[in-house]
């Protein structure tokens, strides 16, 4: 549905987006994740036709954004970052304005209005002035305006920033419901947000895509190491040192002894699980394992690693 080809944007000397390419299909929620200034908003602005790419192109339903911006904008609902609104307007008038521009009038407007008002929970504020609404309501007003024409594609730039935890959960649920019938592309710099909401994560760093996949895939593909914490009784120092020779997939990170208890910390690659071997080795050496705890790397570590200054880790 959306195809991005070698999309590049330079602001003067600053290269905000560097030749990125990806494709997005129908009815899925895609999270665009990156640190502040990574190029998320710039990319979204190019997809919505607000900015023109320096080079490369965006295709929506095989139409390119440069020559067919109006047609593409008809298909898209867009909630810009910081959710700018016309404060002096009534909520009803604001939604009516969007509907007017989208050519939705009369009976059709009443139906669309009813739908977005109930979807976004705006029942109490329809006849209020926008500037008098709370931040959570404002966010939902922006969202309601962006989907009044029931777009096939919804692009949300940081839709939950500045909301309280309850409001975040509400918006999250709403986005999940919308994702069943629409393509939702949302950006965020908050990992938990993305992880809880989306089907697919695209991580962008310094204007380049550094990872792309479901959160499970990203964890699996990451080159980082998992940790295994052991606490042993009856162990001998030399045997512990020799463990590496018997089980090649592990690396001993640290080893301490405290009142006959040995605390050992191991590292192992994602591709293997050495716990069985460790257990067998312990039985052979007559160690007593009183603790074995494996901590898998989570998305947060991966995100932090990928978006550290200097780019992807080289481990």
């Amino acid at each position, binding site marked *: 549905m959306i195809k991005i080809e070698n999309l590049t944007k330079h602001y003067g000397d600053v290269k905000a987006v560097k030749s990125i390419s990806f494709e997005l299909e129908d009815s899925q929620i895609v999270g665009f994740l990156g640190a502040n200034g990574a190029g998320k908003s710039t990319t979204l602005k190019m997809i919505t036709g607000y900015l023109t790419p320096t080079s490369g192109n965006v295709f929506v339903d095989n139409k390119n954004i440069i020559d067919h911006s109006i047609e593409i904008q008809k298909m898209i609902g867009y909630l810009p970052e910081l959710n700018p609104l016309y404060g002096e307007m009534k909520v009803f008038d604001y939604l009516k304005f969007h509907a*007017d521009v989208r050519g939705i009038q009369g009976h059709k407007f009443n139906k669309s209005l009813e739908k977005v008002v109930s979807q976004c929970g705006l029942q109490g504020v329809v006849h209020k002035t926008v500037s008098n609404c709370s931040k959570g309501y404002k966010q939902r007003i922006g969202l309601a305006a962006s989907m009044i024409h029931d777009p096939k594609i919804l692009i949300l730039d940081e839709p939950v920033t500045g909301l309280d935890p309850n409001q975040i959960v509400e918006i999250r649920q709403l986005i999940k419901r919308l994702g069943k019938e629409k393509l939702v592309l949302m950006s965020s710099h908050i990992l938990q947000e993305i992880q809880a909401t989306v089907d697919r994560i695209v991580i962008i760093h310094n204007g380049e895509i550094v990872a792309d996949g479901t959160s499970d895939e990203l964890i699996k593909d990451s080159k980082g190491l998992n940790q295994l914490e052991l606490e042993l009784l009856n162990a001998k120092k030399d045997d512990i040192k020799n463990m590496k020779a018997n089980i090649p997939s592990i690396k001993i990170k640290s080893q301490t002894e405290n009142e006959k208890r040995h605390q050992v910390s191991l590292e192992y690659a994602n591709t293997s699980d050495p716990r069985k071997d460790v257990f067998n080795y312990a039985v052979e050496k007559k160690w007593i394992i009183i603790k074995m705890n494996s901590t898998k790397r989570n998305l947060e570590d991966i995100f932090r690693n990928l978006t550290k200054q200097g780019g992807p880790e080289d481990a």
Partner: protein
Amino acid sequence: MHNIRAIYKKELSSFFSSPMAYIFLVIFALVNGYFFTNTFFLYNQSDMRALFGIVPMVYLFFIPAVSMGLISREKGIGTIEIISTLPIKERDIVLGKYLAGLTLIIISLFSTVIHYFTLIKFGTTIDHGAVFTGYLGLALVAGVYTSIGVFASSLTENQVIAFIVGIAIVLVFFLMDKLLYFVPASLAGIVQYMSTEFHLSNISRGVIDTRNLIYFGSIIGFFLFMTTRVLESRKWS
């Protein structure tokens, strides 16, 4: 077309939903009323020339003030991003906003029609045609100045700057006629043709010449075109 109407409606309702429009209307009516009635009974002449002389001067400040926020405010609060990503051509945004500003100015111009009734009540041998063309001229000048005001508003996100730039450009067109002495004779004709006052005085005299209409039309067209280009330029920033 429905896009221009949607923008127009939004702008007009935002004028009238805040005290802005009413303040403008009252000030405009008061200032013009004061200067008109001040000399009307003194001169004892059955015409509205005093009014038609003062309105263009009030326009100098009034029109840039009305139009200063039309685009700059959208840039300031960020809604420019919403309006630019809706399926509306930049040209339609500019036209809708321009027409809304012009509407407010024409409405305020209408508030001076009360003086026409004063004239009918007390005057003798009134030249109704001259009154009509006088108003037509003022409406056309309003059209030019509003297009300049919208253009100034598109250049910045600061309303005060838009106001000052608007006055500066309007002043150039307003003063050109008065600077003819300082211009080489070979250029005098061009400078005179560029000045709004020259065309306004032609029309006010009761002569509606196509040359004057073409002048007003092309200046309005030029500034609206430039405004559209300024709005489009954000894409290439």
